[in-house]
Structure formats: structure tokens, C-alpha cells
């Protein structure tokens, strides 16, 4: 197991000149961040906060104005640093004239996979993303969610150690979004590092180990999720089958010890879970 961080970014600044304007656009300012191997790191922030630019610099698609980015200890400006990386861009449009299988074959060949190994890998990935039945269909006929899933499959074609996902659930319906989140959690279980950007905070909260929050190109908060969102002076109990008497007793006990009861309510499911349960097993008519 490598001891190098999966991603190490130091003093990263990116300035884009704006034609006919004196003031250039500073997309990222002095960014430092590290993604530890094996974790899921979420880069959060509003639109235009510099998330995609950061990911592009890490992947060597854009050169930094100052600072450096490394992938497993190799400068991301080197092509070889991307040998163990998979990338899913935001709203990807792959070649519409290729079938799902041809798409994976093309990206596999770019990664040096050939013949039996490539065929086996394509079968594995189509099964993993649930597109085995659509393997012979051209991507022009795929839905948004299917495109996103084939995008994730191409990102995994080279069995990467690091996957970089730029808004992986953008524009996908809740079921597709759930499937993608489950795939990311599955990657984590298999020891694959994931660096993802997302404006969807609830989703990031569910799948990320650590998050960094970008605003105007500056990393304003960073840390383990549970530490960042914990409220120090508050505690929660979730009881099942508690009688009214027991609840009353707990309330009384809290009052006697000068604690303040903030809220008492029935436990609820999430809207996502409600939607998924309601639409499950109902094929499109």
C-alpha cells in the first residue's frame, strides 16, 4: 500500500485572463488540500467556486498559475500520473455513435487494455453499472442516468486507484442518483480513493469521509464530516417502542438537570427513501 496521499495540492492558484478587462478572474487562491488514499473526499461549494477548475488542474487538463498538484506523489502535469486515475466529467457527452460496449472498449484501449482482459473488464463494468442489457445500444439513445453510469464505467476501466468525479449525479433522477452513490460507496469498500465535487450537500454528507468547502476559490472549511457538522452542546436519542411514560420521564429528568429539550418529534424517513420505495418495482409503462 502506498504511503503517498492520493492527491496533494499545495499553494494552488489559478488566474484566468479575461479579454478586454483589466482584472483577471482568480478561480483558485492558495489552495492546500490532501486526499488520503482510501477515503471519499467531497469538494463542495456553490457554482463558480472553483471546484471544476481544481479537479481539472489535478488531472493535468489545466495548468496552475502557481503551486502544484500531485497524484500519488507524481506531478499531475505528467501524463504518467494519470495511469491510475479515472475521471467522470460533469454532464459528460461521449461519442453518440458508439455503443456502450464500444465506448468502454475505446477507453480501455487508451489505458493499454487488450483482448481477453479488456473483454472481461467490459463485462464486469457493464454488470456493475447495470447496463449489460444496453451494451449494444448507441449512446445517442441513452438516458441522462445511463450516460452518467457509462461515464462511471469508463472512469473505472483501468481499475484505478483514484477516481475523480465532477458532480457525478448532476441532472440524474433520484433512483439513478441513489445507484451512483451506492457505486461510490462500493468503490470505497474496495479501497479506491474518490475525490468528488458536488453542490448537493445531503448527498455529500452521506458518502464523504472528509469534505472541503470552497467559496470564491478559497477553501474556507475542511475536515472530517462528523466533526464539521457536530453541534458540541447537543445530543440526540432515537428510541423505538418507547412508551409515553418513558418519554415523559426522560423529559422530566432533562428538566431536573437544567438541560433544555429542543425538539420532540416522530422519526421520519427521507424524501429520497420515500421516493425510491414508492417507485420501486414499477416499470415504466
Amino acid at each position, binding site marked *: 500500500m502506498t504511503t503517498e496521499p492520493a492527491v496533494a495540492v499545495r499553494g494552488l492558484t489559478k488566474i484566468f485572463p479575461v479579454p478586454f478587462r483589466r482584472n483577471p478572474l482568480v478561480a483558485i487562491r492558495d489552495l492546500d488540500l490532501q486526499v488520503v488514499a482510501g477515503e471519499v473526499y467531497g469538494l463542495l461549494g456553490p457554482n463558480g467556486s472553483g471546484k471544476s477548475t481544481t479537479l481539472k488542474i489535478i488531472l493535468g*487538463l489545466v495548468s496552475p498559475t502557481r503551486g502544484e498538484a500531485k497524484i*500519488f506523489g507524481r506531478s499531475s502535469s505528467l501524463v504518467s500520473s*494519470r*495511469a*491510475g486515475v479515472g*475521471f467522470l*466529467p460533469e454532464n459528460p457527452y461521449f461519442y453518440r*455513435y458508439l455503443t456502450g460496449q464500444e465506448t468502454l472498449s475505446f477507453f480501455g484501449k*487508451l489505458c493499454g487494455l487488450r483482448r481477453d482482459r479488456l473483454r472481461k473488464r467490459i463485462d464486469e463494468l457493464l454488470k456493475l453499472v447495470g447496463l449489460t442489457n444496453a451494451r449494444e445500444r448507441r449512446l445517442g439513445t441513452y438516458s441522462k442516468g445511463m450516460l452518467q453510469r457509462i461515464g462511471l464505467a469508463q472512469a473505472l476501466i483501468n481499475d484505478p486507484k483514484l477516481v475523480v468525479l465532477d458532480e457525478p449525479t448532476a441532472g440524474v433522477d433520484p433512483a439513478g442518483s441513489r445507484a451512483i452513490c451506492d457505486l461510490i460507496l462500493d468503490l470505497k469498500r474496495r479501497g479506491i480513493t474518490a475525490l468528488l465535487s458536488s453542490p448537493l450537500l445531503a448527498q455529500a454528507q452521506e458518502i464523504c469521509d472528509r469534505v472541503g468547502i470552497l467559496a470564491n476559490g478559497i477553501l474556507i472549511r475542511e475536515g472530517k464530516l462528523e466533526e464539521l457538522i457536530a453541534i458540541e452542546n447537543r445530543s440526540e436519542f432515537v428510541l423505538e417502542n418507547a412508551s409515553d411514560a418513558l418519554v415523559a420521564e426522560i423529559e422530566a429528568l432533562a428538566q431536573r438537570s437544567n438541560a433544555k429539550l429542543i425538539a420532540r418529534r416522530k422519526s421520519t424517513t427521507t424524501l429520497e427513501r420515500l421516493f425510491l420505495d414508492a417507485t420501486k418495482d414499477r416499470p415504466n409503462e
Partner: protein
Amino acid sequence: MTTETALDFQHRAFSPGRVFAITSNTLTELTRQKVFYVVLIFALLLIGSSIVLARFSFQQEFQILKDVSLGAISIFTSLLAIVATARLIPQDIEDRTVYTILAKPVARFEYLIGKLIGVLLLLAISTAIMSAMFLAVLYFREQSALHETARQLANAPQEQLEDALRAVRASAFNYNLVPGIAVIYLKSCLLASLALFISTFASTNIFTIVVMTFVYLIGHLQATAREYWLQENVPTWTARVFLALVALLFPDLQAFNLVDDVVAGAAIPLAVFVKTAVLGLFYTTIYAFLAAFVFYGKEL
């Protein structure tokens, strides 16, 4: 799951396998576009229509047939080279496909070379199809002329008949057609490479097509203008540098126009063919290098 990971691979700075993957994908992309078939069908129709040309003497007929067909091959391969190449890079950037490709261990020059070779293969296929159609029409007309001549000279002495048939054969196919077609192909390669270079900094394919149209027109006129100017003036070294720059920016496309000689039945000297071929390969390579240089520093 496979146990060997991508990190275990020994990365090579240049991989023919990666270039081939991009080349074959580019060829698939281009041959699945309607524009390829539209251009090809127009060219084939034009060449095929030569079969019903007004019947002059067979020499005139073959000359017109060659003129029309080689002209059609030249214009349509040039058109295809520009139109097919102009959209390759901007389209990939607009669709973000270029991100997924370059986020793999693929060097930018490998991507560009793969794209260029894909276009050059498409041009080779188109040139081959158009040439096959042209040669088939030429053969058909030659056979027809041979039969007609044999019929007309049925009662003439054998020697006169053989002379006449030899004259028909000499007017129809001659081996100069092959280098003539090869030079047309080289011209289209040059145009494709230049279009690729322009498309590396163009934001739309329309821009590339408009610029290439000007380059095409100026490229055909610049040699005449240069010769006229040199006859009238004694060139200084600054003028020579300027002319060299113009020649680099606007390749002398007239130098690739050997069709007139071929149509007239004149032989293309080997030295002229080699010089033209080297010039074509030189321009194609220079523009490919320039494209790689610009694309290397491009912010995607």
C-alpha cells in the same frame, strides 16, 4: 475484479496502441457522419456523369473525362479534408469528450496524431473510391471507343486498325494518372493538417472552415502573384522573409496542380513528383507539429 491495477503498468511516453485507438475511433466517427456520404455521392455522381458527355473525338472525350474526374477528386477531397477536420477538436471540447480522453494516460500529441491519421485514412479511402469510379468510367469509355474504332475501320488494313486502337489506348489510361492522383491526395493531407492546426485555437468549426476557404483561394493564387512581383522587383532579404512567411501560412497549392499535365497526356517527371510529394509531406508535418505545439499549451 482484476488484481493488477493500472498503476502497475509501465507507462510509455508514446504508444502506437493509444494512437491507433484514437485513429480507429476518428475513422468510425467520420464514416458515421452524413457529410462524408453526401460529399462522396456528389463526387461519384459528377465522375459518373462523364459517361454521358457529348461525344467528341475520342481524344477530346478522354481529355474532358480526365479533366472533370480529376478536378472532382481534387475539389471533393479538399472539401472533405477541411469539413471533416474542422469539427474534430472543437466538437470534442464542446462535448467534454476530450476531458475523458486526456484524463487517461494519453499525451496530447498522441490524441492529435490519432485524430490526424484518422482523417488521412478517411481521405485515402475517399480518394480510392473516387479513383476507382473514375478508372471504371475511363475503362468503360475506352472499351466503347475501341469497339467503335474497330467497327469503323473494319475494312481498313490491319496495320491502320492497330495504329488506331493503339491511339485510343494511349489517350485513355496512362500511368501518369497514378502520381497525379497521389499528388491530389497529398494536397488533401496538407489541407487536413492545416485545418487541424487552425482548429486547435479556433472556438468553432465555422471559423476554421472560413479561414481554410481563404487559405485555399490564396494558396492557389499566391504563386502567380509572387512570380509577377519577383519579375517586377528585385527582392531584398526582408522581402524574402516575408515571402517565406506567406508561403508557410498560405501553402502554394498551385504546386500540387499536376492535373493539367496529366490530362494533356504529358508525363510527370519523377523529380517533379518527388519534389511535390516531399513538399506535401513537409507541409503536413509542419502543420501537425504546430497543432501539437498550440494544443500542448491549450487550457481545456
